[in-house]
């Protein structure tokens, strides 16, 4: 089974995010870069499927030179090969532009199953996976927390409000992965050593036959007008008191008089 995993390098969620001078992007230096945590789930699931059913795992990422680190991490976890789409013209793509590029790359490679995180934790668009499936004309199952492979079909368990929905689709299909699916493995030290020797192919937009005008900053359909940091959270206030009754009384007083909630 040929499994392709789409991965993205994102700023570590613990990094202090600062807005750049242009007001519409974040400062990229001083930030630690990691593999999108939802994509880690996708890589792990792909490796497990390969371990159970055989086949190969290819990881694909579209991003600047640094994105190669994330591909190497996936290779170190155990993926077999990597494709890095690196082209200055691809920079600044919106979700649909990125999907167009990834779909073009996927058309040139064999796949039975495509996995990717349900969203990137940087821009939170939740669009790339489904849009890639749409461009490839294949079904997609989103937010899966359990994957079962049947004969020529895939069954995905999805969490919905108050329950689980089980859906099935014929292969090839695209799945987006949700927290709870698995516990991603660590990249082992021998794995990192081996990853250095695994094939990593770099491709440009021209290699993929993608018109630069349709993607990247030039092809954006969504334009960012401004970025703002969320308002600073107020400090937590601990309500104290000698007895539980006193604490409760104080809580009621604060909610009533200060917060004016009751």
């Amino acid at each position, binding site marked *: 089974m040929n499994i392709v995993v789409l991965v993205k390098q994102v700023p570590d969620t613990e*990094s202090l995010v600062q807005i750049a001078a242009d007001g519409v992007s974040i400062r990229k230096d*001083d930030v*630690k870069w990691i593999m999108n945590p939802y994509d880690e789930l996708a890589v792990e699931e792909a490796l497990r499927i390969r371990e159970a059913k055989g086949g190969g795992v290819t990881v694909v990422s579209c991003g600047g030179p640094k994105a190669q680190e994330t591909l190497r991490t996936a290779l170190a976890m155990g993926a077999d090969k990597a494709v890095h789409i690196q082209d200055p013209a691809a920079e600044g793509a919106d979700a649909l532009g990125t999907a167009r590029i990834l779909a073009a790359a996927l058309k040139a490679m064999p796949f039975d199953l495509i996995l990717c995180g349900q969203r990137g934790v940087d821009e939170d668009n939740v669009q790339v996976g489904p849009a890639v499936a749409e461009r490839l004309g294949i079904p997609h199952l989103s937010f899966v927390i359990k994957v079962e492979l049947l004969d020529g079909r895939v069954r995905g368990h999805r969490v919905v409000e108050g329950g689980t929905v089980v859906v099935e689709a014929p292969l090839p299909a695209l799945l987006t992965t949700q927290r709870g699916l698995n516990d991603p493995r*660590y990249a082992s030290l021998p794995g990192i050593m081996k990853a250095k020797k695994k094939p990593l192919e770099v491709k440009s937009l021209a290699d993929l036959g993608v018109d630069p005008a349709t993607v990247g900053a030039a092809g954006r359909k969504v334009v960012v007008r401004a970025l703002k940091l969320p308002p600073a959270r107020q400090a937590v206030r601990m309500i104290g008191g000698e007895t539980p009754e006193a604490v409760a009384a104080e809580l009621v007083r604060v909610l009533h008089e200060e917060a004016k909630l009751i």
Partner: protein
Amino acid sequence: MERERLEFDVVFVGAGPAGLAGAIRLKQLAAERGREIEVCVIDKAPALGAHSLSGAVVDPRALAELLPDYRERGCPIEEEGLRDAVFYLTAAKALRLPWVPPFLHNEGAFVGSLSKLCAWLGAIAEEAGVNVFPGFAGVEALFDDAGGRVLGVRTGDKGVDKQGRRKGNFEPGVDLLAKVTVFAEGPRGSLLREAAKRLGLFDGRMPQVFETAVKEVIELPEASPFLTAPEAVIHTFGFPLGLHTKGGGFLYRMAERRVALGLVVGLDYADPMLEPYREFLRFKRHPLVAGLIAGGRVLQQGAKTLPVGGWYSMPRLCADGALVIGDSACTLNARRLKGVHTAMKSGMLAAETIAEALAAGDTGASALEGYRRRLEESWLGEELRQARNFSQALSRPPASRVVHLGAQMLSRGRGLVDPMPLHEDCSTLRPGVFREPAPVADLDGTLYLDKLTGVYLSGTRHEEDQPCHLHIPHPELCTTRCWQEYRSPCTRFCPGQVYEIETAEGGRPRLKLNPSNCLHCKTCEIKDPLRNILWNCPEGGGGPNWTIL
């Protein structure tokens, strides 16, 4: 359990300036001699530079020897052409010294961030063919059956839960075998602590003594007077520590409207109620400092210990198959307030010795002894000899301190007593004296932070479900003797609020540990008066995520 083994010629434990400079130098020597030398560097930090913190005013001497084209290669320099100012602070005033002692002159030096510098050096090492592995902690030195020869190092298991059980993503550590293992763990290495016992590396040496630095990088408003001040480097002494506790403050101007600010507190302090973090806040509230940083915003915070014992507390540097370099070897020059260039130089000298030993096919202690000789004969040895009694003099009462320092200046470090003794930091707290701590003005969460906000801004993160990395052999002492005699000083000397004494059921006090707050500074292990704390490496990849400290 059968562990995977990987063989290298040389393994460095720690990707700080010492380990990385050593690794790069080895690769240079290998290339010069047309030899293959397989070099590996591991570090517990999640990324290169993420656990490296220093002032830092860097003397480029070692850097220029290692990489003469360091500027062209994009060395991250924040500010150069430095002019210095030294202030004596009283509670309300700042008196500028008319004269800066020659060892504090920084004309040829530059202000740098050690996190950035190590990330940069690490990339150069990788380019040179070094295997650099951040995210892997060394947890145990490996010995031969006789126990006298170091064979390598074992990395820590990952994916182990609080109770020590394997989780679904368990990943066993591996054995890195090497002809030479180099301890470059920085101050108070946990691996060296155990290996040194076995090898007797600290026997007959003076104790290692330390200072704890709390540091921040602050972004200043455009109108800040410090951005255009003629002096980019400011050092202070006096307030808030007074003259009886050694230490002092620093402000170094960086690029991009930033300032590095910190307070260093000598851990030989006597007052059990002293809290380095609180002193750091008081330092920031001093009118001189508050004026220079007004309107600023803290970007990152961190803390680290500095080994200041110097020459006489250096361990034995060589053993069969092993060397000790950098802060682990106490190469920091406390007199010049600099440790980056000395750490790098020690790594480079170790590399030269190792290359020779590998070529000769003998990596025993006597073959590696050349490292100590090289160190003694180099400018590094000269620097450290001149500073050999400096830290000791600073621990003296103010009047005799001046006399000792003066005599040392006139006699190239010998002074009136040579060697002057050092006393372990864990032995200096005065029991039973509990003064009220000085008040600290309100914190605003932007420029003046409480400890937990500081921990947040250090980016510190650990896997929560893992065994506690702090070992307290006698927990019962925490709420009995340690409370009675010292009022649980761990709750104060730790800058990360790892230690708390809480009231358990029945009103009994109980020690509560928050190991995931740990900034990896190791002050606790060093200062604990009952020696009841052992710091071990948490799961590799945990800890601070410094990028600009």
